[in-house]
Protein backbone atom coordinates (compact mmCIF):
# COMPACT_ATOMS: atom_id res chain seq x y z
CA UNK A 1 0.00 0.00 0.00
CA UNK A 2 2.84 2.33 0.94
CA UNK A 3 4.53 1.59 -2.38
CA UNK A 4 1.32 2.32 -4.26
CA UNK A 5 0.91 5.68 -2.48
CA UNK A 6 4.50 6.59 -3.28
CA UNK A 7 4.01 5.61 -6.89
CA UNK A 8 0.85 7.72 -7.22
CA UNK A 9 2.51 10.67 -5.50
CA UNK A 10 5.57 10.36 -7.71
CA UNK A 11 3.40 10.14 -10.82
CA UNK A 12 1.42 13.21 -9.84
CA UNK A 13 4.60 15.19 -9.21
CA UNK A 14 6.08 14.15 -12.54
CA UNK A 15 2.85 14.93 -14.39
CA UNK A 16 2.52 18.40 -12.93
CA UNK A 17 6.19 19.18 -13.41
CA UNK A 18 5.99 18.34 -17.11
CA UNK A 19 2.42 19.52 -17.79
CA UNK A 20 1.93 20.81 -21.30
CA UNK A 21 0.11 24.10 -21.64
CA UNK A 22 -1.56 24.90 -24.92
CA UNK A 23 -3.77 27.90 -25.55
CA UNK A 24 -6.46 27.06 -28.03
CA UNK A 25 -8.95 29.37 -29.73
CA UNK A 26 -11.81 29.11 -32.15
CA UNK A 27 -11.33 31.81 -34.75
CA UNK A 28 -13.96 33.45 -36.91
CA UNK A 29 -13.30 34.60 -40.48
CA UNK A 30 -10.33 32.32 -41.10
CA UNK A 31 -11.26 31.12 -44.58
CA UNK A 32 -8.03 30.92 -46.55
CA UNK A 33 -4.45 29.93 -45.86
CA UNK A 34 -2.95 32.95 -47.62
CA UNK A 35 -5.01 35.28 -45.47
CA UNK A 36 -4.35 33.37 -42.25
CA UNK A 37 -0.59 33.39 -42.70
CA UNK A 38 -0.38 36.44 -40.47
CA UNK A 39 -1.51 34.38 -37.51
CA UNK A 40 1.21 31.80 -38.07
CA UNK A 41 3.89 34.43 -38.57
CA UNK A 42 3.00 36.24 -35.37
CA UNK A 43 2.75 33.04 -33.36
CA UNK A 44 6.11 31.87 -34.66
CA UNK A 45 7.68 35.10 -33.48
CA UNK A 46 6.57 34.58 -29.87
CA UNK A 47 9.46 33.54 -27.62
CA UNK A 48 7.05 31.43 -25.57
CA UNK A 49 6.16 29.26 -28.55
CA UNK A 50 6.96 25.57 -28.51
CA UNK A 51 4.65 24.68 -31.37
CA UNK A 52 1.62 26.19 -33.04
CA UNK A 53 -1.26 25.01 -35.13
CA UNK A 54 -3.56 26.70 -37.63
CA UNK A 55 -6.45 24.58 -38.84
CA UNK A 56 -8.86 26.13 -41.32
CA UNK A 57 -11.58 23.50 -41.27
CA UNK A 58 -12.00 23.34 -37.53
CA UNK A 59 -11.24 27.09 -37.22
CA UNK A 60 -8.75 26.29 -34.49
CA UNK A 61 -5.57 28.18 -33.71
CA UNK A 62 -3.43 26.73 -30.93
CA UNK A 63 -0.17 27.64 -29.28
CA UNK A 64 1.79 25.19 -27.18
CA UNK A 65 3.96 27.05 -24.69
CA UNK A 66 7.53 26.18 -23.90
CA UNK A 67 7.99 24.65 -20.51
CA UNK A 68 8.03 27.31 -17.82
CA UNK A 69 6.81 30.03 -20.19
CA UNK A 70 3.61 32.00 -19.76
CA UNK A 71 1.38 34.01 -22.04
CA UNK A 72 -1.90 35.64 -21.15
CA UNK A 73 -5.05 34.78 -23.04
CA UNK A 74 -5.33 38.46 -23.86
CA UNK A 75 -1.91 38.49 -25.57
CA UNK A 76 -2.80 35.37 -27.50
CA UNK A 77 -6.10 36.86 -28.66
CA UNK A 78 -4.31 40.05 -29.67
CA UNK A 79 -2.07 38.11 -32.06
CA UNK A 80 -5.15 36.78 -33.82
CA UNK A 81 -7.08 40.04 -33.89
CA UNK A 82 -4.07 41.91 -35.24
CA UNK A 83 -4.06 39.46 -38.11
CA UNK A 84 -7.63 40.55 -38.88
CA UNK A 85 -9.73 37.84 -37.26
CA UNK A 86 -12.01 37.57 -34.28
CA UNK A 87 -11.84 35.02 -31.51
CA UNK A 88 -14.90 33.20 -30.37
CA UNK A 89 -13.62 31.02 -27.58
CA UNK A 90 -10.28 30.62 -25.80
CA UNK A 91 -9.29 27.77 -23.53
CA UNK A 92 -6.18 26.29 -21.98
CA UNK A 93 -5.65 22.59 -22.38
CA UNK A 94 -2.99 20.22 -21.14
CA UNK A 95 -2.52 18.71 -24.57
CA UNK A 96 0.37 19.00 -26.95
CA UNK A 97 -0.16 20.19 -30.50
CA UNK A 98 0.40 16.62 -31.67
CA UNK A 99 -2.33 15.39 -29.36
CA UNK A 100 -4.75 18.06 -30.59
CA UNK A 101 -3.93 17.16 -34.17
CA UNK A 102 -4.43 13.49 -33.51
CA UNK A 103 -7.82 14.21 -31.98
CA UNK A 104 -8.78 16.31 -34.99
CA UNK A 105 -7.68 13.62 -37.41
CA UNK A 106 -9.75 11.10 -35.54
CA UNK A 107 -12.76 13.38 -35.65
CA UNK A 108 -12.41 14.23 -39.34
CA UNK A 109 -9.65 12.61 -41.39
CA UNK A 110 -7.62 14.87 -43.70
CA UNK A 111 -8.81 18.07 -42.13
CA UNK A 112 -5.76 18.94 -40.15
CA UNK A 113 -2.73 20.92 -41.18
CA UNK A 114 0.69 20.07 -39.81
CA UNK A 115 2.26 21.67 -36.79
CA UNK A 116 4.05 24.92 -37.55
Amino acid at each position, binding site marked *: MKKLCLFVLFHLCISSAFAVTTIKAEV*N*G*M*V*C*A*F*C*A*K*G*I*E*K*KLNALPQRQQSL*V*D*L*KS*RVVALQLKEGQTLTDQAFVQVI*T*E*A*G*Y*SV*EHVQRVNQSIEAIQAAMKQAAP*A*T*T*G*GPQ
Partner: protein
Amino acid sequence: MRMPPTLACRTVVASLCLFQIHAEAAALMGFADSAMLMTEVGRYNQEWMLNYAPTVGHAIGIEQMRMSAKGEAATTITGVNYTGLIKRWNGRSTQANLWLNGGLGEARGLHEGFAYTPGVQFDIESTRLYFLAKTRMIRAPEMRYDTTAIQAGFSFYEASYEETQPWLVLELKSMRNTDPSLQITPALRFINKTYFLELGITNPGQGEGFAPRINAMFVF
Protein backbone atom coordinates in the same frame (compact mmCIF):
# COMPACT_ATOMS: atom_id res chain seq x y z
CA MET B 1 20.62 57.89 -68.83
CA ARG B 2 20.60 60.66 -66.29
CA MET B 3 17.30 62.29 -65.38
CA PRO B 4 17.06 66.01 -64.71
CA PRO B 5 16.84 66.62 -60.94
CA THR B 6 13.30 67.97 -61.10
CA LEU B 7 12.07 65.05 -63.18
CA ALA B 8 13.85 62.55 -60.94
CA CYS B 9 12.34 64.21 -57.91
CA ARG B 10 8.87 64.13 -59.42
CA THR B 11 9.29 60.51 -60.36
CA VAL B 12 10.40 59.58 -56.87
CA VAL B 13 7.56 61.52 -55.29
CA ALA B 14 5.09 59.95 -57.67
CA SER B 15 6.54 56.52 -57.07
CA LEU B 16 6.32 56.99 -53.39
CA CYS B 17 2.84 57.92 -53.76
CA LEU B 18 0.27 56.05 -55.83
CA PHE B 19 -0.18 52.42 -55.20
CA GLN B 20 -3.08 50.33 -54.80
CA ILE B 21 -4.08 47.89 -57.46
CA HIS B 22 -7.29 46.16 -57.67
CA ALA B 23 -5.86 42.91 -56.49
CA GLU B 24 -7.97 40.03 -57.62
CA ALA B 25 -8.29 38.63 -54.16
CA ALA B 26 -10.24 39.36 -51.08
CA ALA B 27 -7.22 40.65 -49.26
CA LEU B 28 -5.98 44.04 -50.38
CA MET B 29 -3.44 44.07 -47.63
CA GLY B 30 -1.69 41.72 -45.29
CA PHE B 31 -1.72 41.58 -41.52
CA ALA B 32 -0.29 44.17 -39.16
CA ASP B 33 3.39 44.90 -39.88
CA SER B 34 3.39 43.05 -43.19
CA ALA B 35 4.21 43.91 -46.77
CA MET B 36 2.29 42.69 -49.78
CA LEU B 37 3.37 42.53 -53.38
CA MET B 38 0.65 42.26 -56.03
CA THR B 39 0.87 42.16 -59.77
CA GLU B 40 -1.55 41.81 -62.65
CA VAL B 41 -0.44 41.33 -66.21
CA GLY B 42 -3.07 41.45 -68.93
CA ARG B 43 -3.32 42.61 -72.48
CA TYR B 44 -4.87 45.99 -71.82
CA ASN B 45 -3.49 46.79 -68.43
CA GLN B 46 -0.52 45.83 -66.34
CA GLU B 47 -0.13 46.75 -62.73
CA TRP B 48 2.09 46.11 -59.79
CA MET B 49 1.81 47.33 -56.27
CA LEU B 50 3.80 47.03 -53.09
CA ASN B 51 2.14 48.07 -49.88
CA TYR B 52 2.89 48.01 -46.21
CA ALA B 53 0.29 47.61 -43.47
CA PRO B 54 1.52 49.17 -40.22
CA THR B 55 -1.70 48.09 -38.52
CA VAL B 56 -4.56 45.87 -39.51
CA GLY B 57 -6.93 47.83 -41.72
CA HIS B 58 -4.52 50.41 -43.13
CA ALA B 59 -1.89 50.10 -45.81
CA ILE B 60 0.20 52.53 -47.78
CA GLY B 61 2.33 51.80 -50.76
CA ILE B 62 3.47 52.47 -54.26
CA GLU B 63 1.85 51.40 -57.50
CA GLN B 64 2.39 51.54 -61.19
CA MET B 65 -0.37 50.95 -63.74
CA ARG B 66 -0.05 50.83 -67.49
CA MET B 67 -3.13 50.94 -69.66
CA SER B 68 -3.81 51.24 -73.34
CA ALA B 69 -6.89 51.24 -75.50
CA LYS B 70 -6.93 49.26 -78.72
CA GLY B 71 -4.54 50.81 -81.22
CA GLU B 72 -3.50 53.58 -78.83
CA ALA B 73 -0.25 54.35 -77.12
CA ALA B 74 -0.08 53.39 -73.46
CA THR B 75 -0.43 55.59 -70.42
CA THR B 76 1.49 54.77 -67.27
CA ILE B 77 0.44 56.04 -63.87
CA THR B 78 2.95 55.96 -61.05
CA GLY B 79 2.12 57.07 -57.57
CA VAL B 80 1.22 56.34 -53.99
CA ASN B 81 -1.88 54.76 -52.61
CA TYR B 82 -3.76 54.21 -49.42
CA THR B 83 -5.99 51.21 -48.72
CA GLY B 84 -8.39 51.21 -45.81
CA LEU B 85 -10.57 48.48 -44.48
CA ILE B 86 -13.86 50.20 -43.79
CA LYS B 87 -15.51 47.17 -42.26
CA ARG B 88 -14.78 43.49 -41.84
CA TRP B 89 -17.36 40.91 -40.93
CA ASN B 90 -15.85 37.73 -39.52
CA GLY B 91 -18.41 34.94 -39.50
CA ARG B 92 -17.95 31.39 -38.26
CA SER B 93 -17.04 30.19 -41.74
CA THR B 94 -17.13 33.35 -43.82
CA GLN B 95 -15.39 36.66 -44.07
CA ALA B 96 -16.68 39.80 -45.77
CA ASN B 97 -14.82 43.04 -46.30
CA LEU B 98 -15.56 46.53 -47.47
CA TRP B 99 -12.48 48.37 -48.70
CA LEU B 100 -11.74 51.89 -49.76
CA ASN B 101 -8.64 52.70 -51.72
CA GLY B 102 -7.28 55.65 -53.56
CA GLY B 103 -4.13 56.65 -55.29
CA LEU B 104 -2.52 59.87 -56.37
CA GLY B 105 0.19 60.02 -58.95
CA GLU B 106 1.43 61.15 -62.26
CA ALA B 107 0.36 59.94 -65.69
CA ARG B 108 2.85 59.69 -68.50
CA GLY B 109 2.52 58.55 -72.08
CA LEU B 110 -0.54 59.18 -74.20
CA HIS B 111 -2.12 61.11 -71.35
CA GLU B 112 0.01 63.16 -69.00
CA GLY B 113 -0.55 64.98 -65.77
CA PHE B 114 -2.02 64.49 -62.33
CA ALA B 115 -3.79 61.15 -61.91
CA TYR B 116 -6.17 59.92 -59.23
CA THR B 117 -7.65 56.48 -58.75
CA PRO B 118 -10.25 56.20 -55.99
CA GLY B 119 -12.03 52.88 -55.66
CA VAL B 120 -14.23 50.75 -53.46
CA GLN B 121 -14.44 46.99 -53.13
CA PHE B 122 -16.69 44.50 -51.42
CA ASP B 123 -15.84 40.83 -51.09
CA ILE B 124 -17.23 37.85 -49.28
CA GLU B 125 -15.81 34.36 -49.14
CA SER B 126 -15.99 31.07 -47.39
CA THR B 127 -13.59 28.16 -47.67
CA ARG B 128 -15.47 27.07 -50.81
CA LEU B 129 -17.22 30.10 -52.32
CA TYR B 130 -16.09 33.57 -53.30
CA PHE B 131 -17.68 36.78 -54.56
CA LEU B 132 -16.22 40.20 -55.19
CA ALA B 133 -17.49 43.49 -56.61
CA LYS B 134 -15.36 46.55 -57.13
CA THR B 135 -15.29 49.81 -58.94
CA ARG B 136 -12.47 52.21 -59.48
CA MET B 137 -11.97 55.52 -61.20
CA ILE B 138 -8.70 55.76 -63.12
CA ARG B 139 -8.38 59.30 -64.29
CA ALA B 140 -5.88 61.77 -65.62
CA PRO B 141 -6.26 64.80 -67.90
CA GLU B 142 -8.42 63.65 -70.83
CA MET B 143 -8.17 60.06 -69.64
CA ARG B 144 -10.87 57.88 -68.12
CA TYR B 145 -10.17 54.22 -67.66
CA ASP B 146 -12.81 53.69 -64.99
CA THR B 147 -13.32 50.03 -64.21
CA THR B 148 -16.04 47.96 -62.64
CA ALA B 149 -15.73 44.26 -62.02
CA ILE B 150 -17.46 41.37 -60.40
CA GLN B 151 -15.93 38.00 -59.67
CA ALA B 152 -17.44 34.78 -58.46
CA GLY B 153 -15.81 31.45 -57.87
CA PHE B 154 -15.68 28.19 -56.05
CA SER B 155 -12.95 25.92 -54.81
CA PHE B 156 -12.78 22.34 -55.99
CA TYR B 157 -12.33 21.07 -52.46
CA GLU B 158 -11.70 22.32 -48.96
CA ALA B 159 -8.00 22.38 -48.22
CA SER B 160 -6.01 22.29 -45.04
CA TYR B 161 -3.75 25.14 -44.02
CA GLU B 162 -0.72 23.34 -45.46
CA GLU B 163 -2.25 22.52 -48.83
CA THR B 164 -2.63 24.52 -52.01
CA GLN B 165 -6.27 25.18 -52.75
CA PRO B 166 -7.41 25.42 -56.38
CA TRP B 167 -10.32 27.66 -57.35
CA LEU B 168 -12.21 28.41 -60.53
CA VAL B 169 -13.06 32.09 -60.77
CA LEU B 170 -14.99 34.00 -63.40
CA GLU B 171 -14.53 37.74 -63.73
CA LEU B 172 -16.62 40.21 -65.70
CA LYS B 173 -14.83 43.51 -65.98
CA SER B 174 -15.72 46.62 -67.87
CA MET B 175 -13.08 49.20 -68.55
CA ARG B 176 -14.14 52.48 -70.02
CA ASN B 177 -12.53 53.57 -73.29
CA THR B 178 -11.07 50.18 -74.09
CA ASP B 179 -12.03 47.80 -76.84
CA PRO B 180 -13.46 45.40 -75.96
CA SER B 181 -14.89 47.28 -73.01
CA LEU B 182 -16.17 44.08 -71.44
CA GLN B 183 -13.52 41.58 -70.47
CA ILE B 184 -14.60 38.11 -69.45
CA THR B 185 -11.88 36.15 -67.74
CA PRO B 186 -12.21 32.60 -66.50
CA ALA B 187 -9.25 31.82 -64.32
CA LEU B 188 -7.70 29.12 -62.22
CA ARG B 189 -6.64 30.40 -58.86
CA PHE B 190 -4.20 28.68 -56.54
CA ILE B 191 -4.07 29.78 -52.94
CA ASN B 192 -1.31 28.67 -50.65
CA LYS B 193 -0.24 30.10 -47.33
CA THR B 194 2.76 31.71 -49.03
CA TYR B 195 1.37 32.83 -52.35
CA PHE B 196 -1.70 33.61 -54.42
CA LEU B 197 -1.50 32.81 -58.12
CA GLU B 198 -4.17 33.26 -60.76
CA LEU B 199 -3.90 32.21 -64.40
CA GLY B 200 -6.70 33.30 -66.68
CA ILE B 201 -7.68 33.92 -70.26
CA THR B 202 -9.47 37.14 -71.08
CA ASN B 203 -12.20 36.87 -73.68
CA PRO B 204 -11.43 33.34 -74.81
CA GLY B 205 -12.75 32.71 -78.28
CA GLN B 206 -12.91 36.37 -79.18
CA GLY B 207 -10.13 36.59 -81.73
CA GLU B 208 -8.17 39.77 -81.11
CA GLY B 209 -9.58 40.19 -77.65
CA PHE B 210 -8.07 36.91 -76.51
CA ALA B 211 -5.29 37.44 -73.99
CA PRO B 212 -3.71 35.58 -71.11
CA ARG B 213 -3.76 37.17 -67.68
CA ILE B 214 -1.67 36.49 -64.62
CA ASN B 215 -2.23 37.74 -61.10
CA ALA B 216 0.08 37.03 -58.23
CA MET B 217 0.34 38.12 -54.62
CA PHE B 218 2.93 37.52 -51.98
CA VAL B 219 2.83 38.60 -48.36
CA PHE B 220 5.89 39.02 -46.19
